[in-house]
Structure formats: C-alpha cells, structure tokens
C-alpha cells in the first residue's frame, strides 16, 4: 500500500499535511512523480501523457480529506483512474452465434501463445467444455509438437498437419470440431512481427476463413515502449477482440497492460501467472493498476490466502494480529499455511516493494530444508518463550540451537525475522484503526495473513 510512489508523493506533498485543497502547483509536482512512476513501469510515454492530462483535472482542487494524507489521496485518484482505464472486469469470451466458439491467438514471437493456448483449453475444460487445440504454427521448429504434447497432457483434442498451410489447417480443424462437436476451437498461430506484411496477411486470411468469435492478442507483460506499436498494428491489420497478458509471475511492473489497452481499446481478458497449465487467470484491472503503480498485487494474494487457509483459524489469527498477540507458534502455523499457498517467494513477489515487508523477510527463502529447521527451532522453545520471545537470552538461544540441531546464528535470524514481522503487524494494526484498511478488508473478508 505504501509504495515507493506513495512515499515520493508524500514527501512531495508534505507541506499539505492536514486539511486543505491540492493547488495546481502541488498537483503538478505530484504529476511529475506519477509520470516517472508510470514510465518506469514501461507504460508508453504517449499513453502516460494522455493519462496525466486526464487525471490532473480530477486532482486539482481535490479535498484532502480526513485521515488520508495528500500523497495517498493522489495515489487513490490515480489508482481509480488507472483501473477505470484498464476497463471491464475479468473479461469473458464472446459466445458463438452458431457452432463452436473459435478463439484465435495471435502475437509476436516468444510472447507465449502456445502455452497460453493450452492453458486456455484447460481453463475452459474446468467449466465443462471440450476444446480442440489447433496448431497453425508451421514455421517455428517443434511448435506443433509442443501443442500436441500439451494437449495430451490436459486430455484435450488436437489437430495439426504440417503439410498444409495455416489457413487450410484452421479450416480443417474447425470443420473437424463441428463434426465431433468440440467446443471451443483454439487456434495457435505462429509468432510474427507486425511489420511482416505477408505474415499479417496470413492472419487476415485465417480470420476470414474461420470467423473466430475472439481474436486474442498475446502480449508479454515485460514488453517496453514498443508494446503500442505491435498492438495497434495487430489490431489494425487483423482486428482483435481482446488481450492476454503473459509472464506476470515475473517482477515486471507490467505497464504494457495499460499501453495495449489504451491503443487498442480492447479488454485484457486473461493473465498468465506461471508455467503450470492451470496458471491462467481472469484479469482484474484494480490489481493491475496497483501493480503498475508499484503497489503490488495485494488483492490476488489475499484471494490465494483465502482459498488456502482454514477459515476459523484465519479469523482467530486476524484478531491476534490486531491485538498484537502474534506468537511464534502462530508464526509456525503461518508458515505451514503459506506453503500451501505457494512458495514464500511467490507471495513476497506479489507484495509491493517497500510495503514495510522487511528486507530480511524478502530474502528469507522458504525451501524444504529451511522450513524444517525453522520448525525445529520453534519446536525446541518452551511455551513461555514462544509467547514472549523477548525472554530468550543468550543461554536460552544456545539451548534452543542445541535442541533443534541448528546453530545460534540461525536462531538469531529467526527471532529477528519474527520481530520484524511483529513490527509490521503492529503497523498494520494501527492502520486498521485509522480505517485505511477498510477497502482492503472488505475484499479480504476472511483473513489477511501478511
């Protein structure tokens, strides 16, 4: 929540603490910071310009209300506008008027079309559909085979024929689907440069032949300023109906999302968040907005946590956190639950930088061995020590180290991490009291773990 950007804005607008209105001068200073933040996130510079012009108006004269400090107020406005701009919630695929849905995936080389095709098929299988995967990439060596292997893995039907041209392949695939009542048909086309006239014409021909219900542009989330050129060229030449953003499990801020959305006007329908076949998710503009602004992906984290934790335990924990009664036993429970959510690393990556997550924690890698050792260390503490670690002095540390088969440094490190965590929760608790976590809480409903 309190990211680099928020902090920068805070210091820019420091003189405004308390009540008052943002003056034009204040807003200009704030806009400069926002402009830089967006550019650093790879939002295209033209898109940034338009965006800044749009939000500037809203920010000028805005009341700096109640508990919110002006910096956060501005961030809130920016976040809201970004979310609005990024459009409709969790995109859905267009329905077919008759026959099967036909979804055509297009994009630059290496953007992730083939694996996304399989992920999309798996996603649709989960809602009871019977997809057919069609390999229309006859150029990249092994591309058709890659899709075939993936289709076997998920138990989806596959059509490919390297002897045919892509248009024929797609036509035959669609016809086969009609006959065997596969629905939807997912076409994996070859990666191509938007400059390549001949290759772009090929896409136009395929589209004309099979009349897809959706043409989805697959975009690498790490793309820089050039995203606008590729996206608008694909849209102009072929006409797209939506976007899939891939590789969002990386540490990119993903400003390309805003760029492609702005230049095509098409909704982002799905995002790829990992190499596993089930790691395709619907797109949520609010989360993406926070991420672009460097505020992490708190909401999906919360959702994941919700899915994984024991509800009643979570509620209990929430109470403990807020009352600052979080013990080392709870810490251990947390680790156990965390492991069912995903790797700690994944989780920390979803959190904004500078959220107050201590560096020690970010660097703590929770692999099997580490985890076992942490468990052993906590297991070697007395009940009293677990409740009040401040009593753990030098000799106790040595005893715990001996008992757990670890060393004093490790015990120290763990206690240090725990102390950091407590401190963080304390901050969160006081924010809670100030009402700043209200919106977040509404969404998290059940339990906020980190």
């Amino acid at each position, binding site marked *: 929540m309190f990211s680099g950007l928020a902090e920068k804005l805070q210091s820019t607008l420091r003189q405004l603490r308390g009540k008052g209105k943002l003056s034009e001068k204040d807003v200009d200073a704030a806009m400069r910071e926002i402009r830089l933040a967006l550019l*650093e996130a790879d939002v295209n510079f*033209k898109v940034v310009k338009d965006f800044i012009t749009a939000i500037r108006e809203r920010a000028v004269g805005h009341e700096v209300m109640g508990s919110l400090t002006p910096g956060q107020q501005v961030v809130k406005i920016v976040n809201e506008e970004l979310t609005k701009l990024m459009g409709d919630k969790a995109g859905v695929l267009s329905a077919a008027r008759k026959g099967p849905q036909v979804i055509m995936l297009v994009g630059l*080389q290496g953007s992730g079309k083939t694996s996304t095709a399989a992920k999309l098929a798996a996603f649709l299988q989960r809602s009871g559909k019977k997809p057919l995967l069609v390999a229309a990439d006859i150029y990249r060596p092994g591309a058709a085979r890659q899709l075939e292997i993936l289709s076997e893995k998920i138990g989806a039907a596959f059509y490919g024929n390297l002897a045919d041209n892509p248009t024929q392949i797609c036509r035959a695939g669609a016809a086969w689907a009609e006959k065997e009542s596969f629905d939807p048909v997912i076409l994996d086309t070859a990666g191509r440069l938007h*400059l390549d006239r001949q290759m772009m014409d090929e896409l136009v021909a395929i589209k004309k032949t099979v009349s897809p219900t959706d043409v989805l542009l697959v975009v690498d989330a790490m793309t*820089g300023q050039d995203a606008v050129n590729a996206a608008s060229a694909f849209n102009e030449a072929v006409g797209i109906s939506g976007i899939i953003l891939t590789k969002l499990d990386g540490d990119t801020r993903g*400003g390309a999302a805003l760029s492609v959305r702005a230049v095509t006007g098409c909704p982002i329908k799905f995002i790829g968040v990992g190499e596993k076949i089930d790691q395709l998710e619907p797109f949520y503009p609010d989360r993406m907005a926070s991420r672009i602004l460097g505020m992490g992906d708190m909401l999906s984290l919360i959702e994941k946590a919700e899915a994984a934790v024991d509800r009643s335990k979570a509620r209990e924990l929430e109470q403990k956190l807020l009352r600052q009664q979080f013990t080392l036993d709870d810490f251990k429970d947390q680790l156990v639950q965390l492991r069912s959510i995903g790797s700690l*690393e994944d989780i920390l990556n979803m959190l904004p930088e500078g959220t107050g997550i201590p560096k020690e924690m970010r660097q703590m890698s929770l692999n099997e061995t580490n985890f076992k050792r942490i468990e052993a260390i906590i297991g070697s503490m007395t009940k009293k020590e677990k409740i009040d670690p401040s009593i753990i002095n030098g000799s106790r540390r040595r005893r715990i180290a001996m008992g757990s088969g670890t060393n004093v440094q490790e015990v120290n490190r763990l206690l240090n991490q725990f102390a950091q965590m407590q401190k963080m929760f304390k901050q969160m608790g006081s924010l809670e009291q100030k009402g700043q976590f209200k919106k977040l809480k509404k969404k998290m409903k059940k339990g906020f773990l980190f």
Partner: protein
Amino acid sequence: MNKLETFKSSLARSKSGFIERLNFLIRGGDIDADFYEQLEEILISGDVGVHTTLNLVSELKNEAAAKKITDRQTFRSLLADKITAILIAPSQPAEPETIPQLILLVGVNGSGKTTTAAKLAGYYKAMGKKVMLVAGDTFRAAAIEQLEIWSERVGVELIRQHSGSDPSALFFDAVNAAKARGTEVIIGDTAGRLHNKYNLMEELNKIYRVIGRNLPGAPHQVILVVDATTGQNAISQAKKFNEALPLSGLILTKLDGTARGGIVVAIRALLDLPVLFVGTGEMIEDLAPFDAETFTTALLD
C-alpha cells in the same frame, strides 16, 4: 555487404518512431528551450529508461554548456559519442583458446535462446569449428525437438536426453562427449526461466557448477539472451541472472522488430555487461556481432 551496411539495412527495414524522431530532432538548427525535454522523451520512448535518460541528458546538457554548443548538428556528434562510449565494452572477451569452449545461453521464457543457440552454432561452424549443440531445455514441451530440427538444419551434432531429465547431468555427459570427440565449441541451450524464481535460478547455478567441475574454466561464456522489445525489466533480468551465475554478456534478439534496443544503453549504463551479438530475424544467418560504433551510427543516421 559489410557489417555496417548489414546493420543499417536491418535497422532500416522499419523506421521506428524512435529513430525517425531522433533523426528529426538532431537534423539541424539551434537547440531551443524544449530541446532537452524532447530528447528525454525520445530516449525514454526507445526504452532507455527514465533513470539512464535523465542522467544522460543532464550530462549532455553540462557538456554542451561547457563546450558552448548551441546547434543541433554539433550536439548530434556529442550524443553519438556519448552513446557509443556507454555501449563500448571495456574489454572484449578473449577468443577461445582451450578446447572445448562451452557457451551457455540463459534467459527468460521466449527471449530467443533456442533460436540463438542454433544461430551461434551456424556462426561457429562457418568459422570452421567443430560445434556441438546441447538441448538443455528439458522442461518445455518439444524444446528438445525444436533444437533437434535446428541442429539438422545447421548440420551440427546435438546432445540430448529425454524430456524431463536433469539438465546438469545432461551437460556433464555433453562435456564428456565433446572431450572424446574433439569438439571445439559447445553451445548449451537452457530452459527459459523468470529471474525471480528461486528454485529455477538455483537449478541454473547447479548446471553452472556441474559444468565447471567436469571442465575447469567452463562455462567459458554465460550469455543472457534478451528480447529487444523488453522494457525496464531487462535490467532486473540482467541483475538477477548475474547473481545466479556470472554472466559474460548479452545477446539482444528481435532487433528486426520496431523495438530499437534502447534497453541496451540502459543495461550498459547500469551494469558492466557487454552486448556480444544481436539477432535480426528467424534465420540462422540473422545474427551479427555487436559493434557499439556501428550500432550508434546506424541508430543516429
């Protein structure tokens, strides 16, 4: 065609907005009030990045003031010199001496590693070397088949195991095979991975260590393959991969697109990593050694 011409023609295939505007900007006339601001915008829109751009422009501003430069034409050569100076590698890595030389390609998913491995194989084969490709991506479906097809096209030997096997063990075997057969250059492909995945980076480090144990001094080069369309994240990629195993340099792929590789300037400015080659297409011959001066000249011409 000489090197410069090849480079220029590949750049000229598409005149991106970046180049056009840069040329327009430096064409002539006096430097006016918003000249520097425009310049910032142009560099940023070429993926040079906010940080590097602001530094670069402020340095140029000072230099121009000190040298009393007021016209754009003179400024142009100042800019060219500056960019070249950033891009130029302090010392080119020495040509391979011991045999076999092992070159390991690493990078994020889809950056162009496998294709580049094939291109490099073609490059060294054309130099008369005995080359071996190693299908080190045992993870992605059909990645082995992909490199197999390339190895047949290029006409070099391929060392492979089945999909899902341990890449470290594969490289161990490959080194033995190369020693036995008198292979001069081993080019190792690896699975794409995002640099923030702890376990995958550990795996890479293990490959690195296993290779070094079986062949002292190897891998002789670890090259990060970076897609030229990548934005600021390329910096994080370079940093994190370099932490997992020491990189010797970069290869920038897909320069045949409209992205103009301004990210190279940022990476060179921030990290001490030379750009070794550039990829300019999907064919074997679409690989050229990187040359800072040529690059800058082509960029500003």
